[in-house]
């Protein structure tokens, strides 16, 4: 886990892995909700930036969850 982005990708995929067995329809909102509740704004900004850059390395459910979360989120500017 070298760069900060790699670490966030790893963490997001780990969350995705837990929800995977619940099936796509429960997993996607589950992942999005988990990240919304527990990640600080700078982590969200960083993973959204990675998403904008193509989201390489993110599992499909996670990619979908982050896309929906990003649309629903208005993060405060970095202070």
């Amino acid at each position, binding site marked *: 886990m070298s760069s*900060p982005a790699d*670490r966030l990708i790893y963490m997001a995929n780990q*969350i995705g*892995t837990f929800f995977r067995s619940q099936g796509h329809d429960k997993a996607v909102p589950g992942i999005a909700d988990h990240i*919304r509740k*527990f990640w600080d704004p*700078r982590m969200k900004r960083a993973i959204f930036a990675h998403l904008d850059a193509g989201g390489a390395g993110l599992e499909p459910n996670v990619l979908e969850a982050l896309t929906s979360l990003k649309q629903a989120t208005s993060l*405060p500017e970095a202070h």
Partner: protein
Amino acid sequence: MSMIEEIDFGTPRSKSETMVTLTIDGNEVTVPEGTSIMRAAMDAGHQIPKLCATDMVDAFGSCRLCVVEIEGRAGRPASCTTPVMNGLVVHTQSERLKQLRKGVMELYISDHPLDCLTCGANGDCELQDMAGAVGLREVRYGYEGENHVFAKSNGEINAAWMPKDESNPYFTYDPSKCIVCSRCVRACEEVQGSFALTISGRGFDSRVSPGMNESFLGSECVSCGACVQACPTATLTEKSVIEIGQPEHSVVTTCAYCGVGCAFKAEMRGEEVVRMVPYKDGKANRGHSCVKGRFAWGYTNHGERILKPMIRERIEDPWREVSWDAAFSFAAAKMRGIQKKYGRDAIGGITSSRCTNEETYLVQKLIRAGFGNNNVDTCARVCHSPTGYGLSVTFGTSAGTQDFDSVEDTDVAVIIGANPASAHPVFASRLKKRLRQGAKLIVIDPRRTEMVESPHVKALHLPLMPGTNVAVVTALAHVIVTEGLVNEAFVRERCDWSEFEEWAAFVAQPKHSPEATAILTGVDPKTLREAARVYATGGNGAIYYGLGVTEHSQGSTTVIAIANLAMATGNIGRPGVGVNPLRGQNNVQGSCDMGSFPHELPGYRHIAGDAVREQFEAMWDVKLNPEPGLRIPNMFDAAIEGTFMGLYVQGEDILQSDPNTKHVVAALSAMECVIVHDLFLNETANYAHVFLPGSSFLEKDGTFTNAERRIQRVRKVMSPKNGLADWEVTIGLAKAMGFEMNYSHPSEIMDEIAALTPTFAGVSYAKLDELGSVQWPCNEKAPEGTPVMHIDGFVRGKGKFIITEYVATDERTGPRFPLLLTTGRILSQYNVGAQTRRTENVVWHAEDRLEIHPHDAELRGVRDGDWVRLTSRAGETTLRAEITDRVSPGVVYTTFHHPDTQANVITTDYSDWATNCPEYKVTAVQISPSNGPSDWQKSYDEQARQSRRIAPAEAAE
């Protein structure tokens, strides 16, 4: 103030609900059936003379001092062993009884030293009291006969005399003062469950013997203190009492070690502690203690304690002692400066699970309201955060479901990833007592723990490979579902049925069977099936678990799997059952309750919830940030990245306790201001710019909340040696940062907590004084608290079954790192050892050792006691090996109590998927012979030595 006197009723309380009425000395007494006449008399206020009886152990009937007369019965029975019956007429005093008692005492005293004036027990000796009570005035036999008292008799060496055993650092055993009442032996068996003591010999040769005539220190004695408490003479006496003298007042307070939360009487002389004695009315410990709480409080006045605030510009500089005000302004200027330069979110803090609820509450308040962000976390992040997550999604509350008394109704205890005999000893003693009465025990642990090896306990042990908890617990569920052992009525009534069906179908898949998963878990399928059947059908099943469950990549998943298991078998919502996390630190439950997690306000309410947030905003008169803040591991990542530059750490040694030390060092070194608030210059302080001295639990008022959600008072028995209680320090720092918090006493802080937190609404210091303690939720619905949760339904509504797929951790063994390292604790040391290493407890554990199986050791040419190099992908360290088959081949084990071992140099960055709780319990390692400390250990040691320098004080201005 005066001494708190606790009545000794002579024999234990009977739990019977049938009442019996009899007459004792002309008074009618009504007591539960099964009560002894001795206890009934004491109930009526008549104390029958006694020596071998005390209410912490069962009646024994050996001293014959408690004889009574019963009308219509022949002879004079011992009142301790004679149960009450309806209509009995008992006389406790008569001419004949007086003679008999005097005769008994005369014999006792004829073989007892008469040095009462200079004796350590002078003023606190039951033998002395009884001699007075029976009116003993002479000893007709003289003292020259055969005796155990004098080293020489008639000029000859007296073979019956034995010297004092001073081997235990905390108490002495003086055989010359022993009356062989065997109270100590029975306390060791019945209360502690160690069976370390016995009576050797017969008749006049009878002696109390630790083990096979060993010294106390050399025997199986665990130094819990029960024998010392039970001893009616000076035979077993605390060394502190011998040295200081008898205490003159006492105050009830709560132990500051583990999450059991034992109540103690601090017995004092002025502001000096004479001894700590477990309090019988303490509802967590019921009068029992362990070596840490009972004896290991000497750290509070250890010479290494720092009592003056200190600052420095750079961590390479020596420390400079300054006034409190100077330290506060220095720290405030640094922290505000960082916010100005890097943004409001660039600082944060860590609350302490060792401090009080009130102190923790203030730190999170300072961060949320004063710093203006939610970058607050607590050490629960690295221990029980998965418990919070797992139990809240399944049951609806982030806490254990039972009180400790519940164990008395348990028929099957399942212990997963916990070793209560070492880490929660008083709970272990209570559990073992129940096991000796016939309850069954299942232990799921990679290691054959002290619980498995307890005397008179037969455990079904499932030695799993570290990291396979989910597979094992899901396999248990598989057996329960496929063999039709589900409690369907319970599930239909209390849980969501369709979620259950989905879950049941999942666990029933053949791939989850014990046979299919054995290849991963290493657990014998037959034993696993037996364990599942016993838990599901053996009566009240209670699960107790520890960090062996939570500190994994799948920590939260295992907690969920455990909750599923309890719901499927209906083991929730009454005494004797439940899901019970064993909390590591004294106030880890409390620190979580108090809003120490970045996403939650006090009472586990998400910061994004507008209604809740607005309540706090109104009370605190500030605008709060609705976004969750950074968790501890995220703080480290952000520090290295350059966006998190200032940290206030109260009572926590993150450098020693958090995984991947090198990563933590890099993070701390990157920060521009680290404020450490602690008793000692801990390892984290090596990287700090401000040191604020802390106060010990003896020096402040407050409350702790233990693993059973029990809120108990911590009471100040001496002035803070550093000048300020910890809550006052936080207020001082806040004020310097421009955020005023005005409280004149911690009770006012609790009032604010109660006003803002529904589960604490009924809590106040007045109520705690009245009831002794309460278990939250404590509010209008439960004014005296809630011992057992989820009685008529789950807090969240319907219990939620969630699918738990086993996913192997990415920390894998391979050719370079073929062994799995797992970590744990031992009895005499606590956590990172900052306290216990500064007590005499080091005689039991002077260094961390690496346990390794003989096969693995032989393969590597390692002999017992050899130095070995322990290498993982994260780093390497050295320590000495202990060869034992307690661990399976392929698994090695160590404790982490000593900073020079640096066990966390080895542990990795992997963490729980839901909470980022680090995966301490699984690290792939290799072992090789070594000559001594690694280069890292040497350079670390040098840095620590440099960093701890304190500049000589400058002349006063």
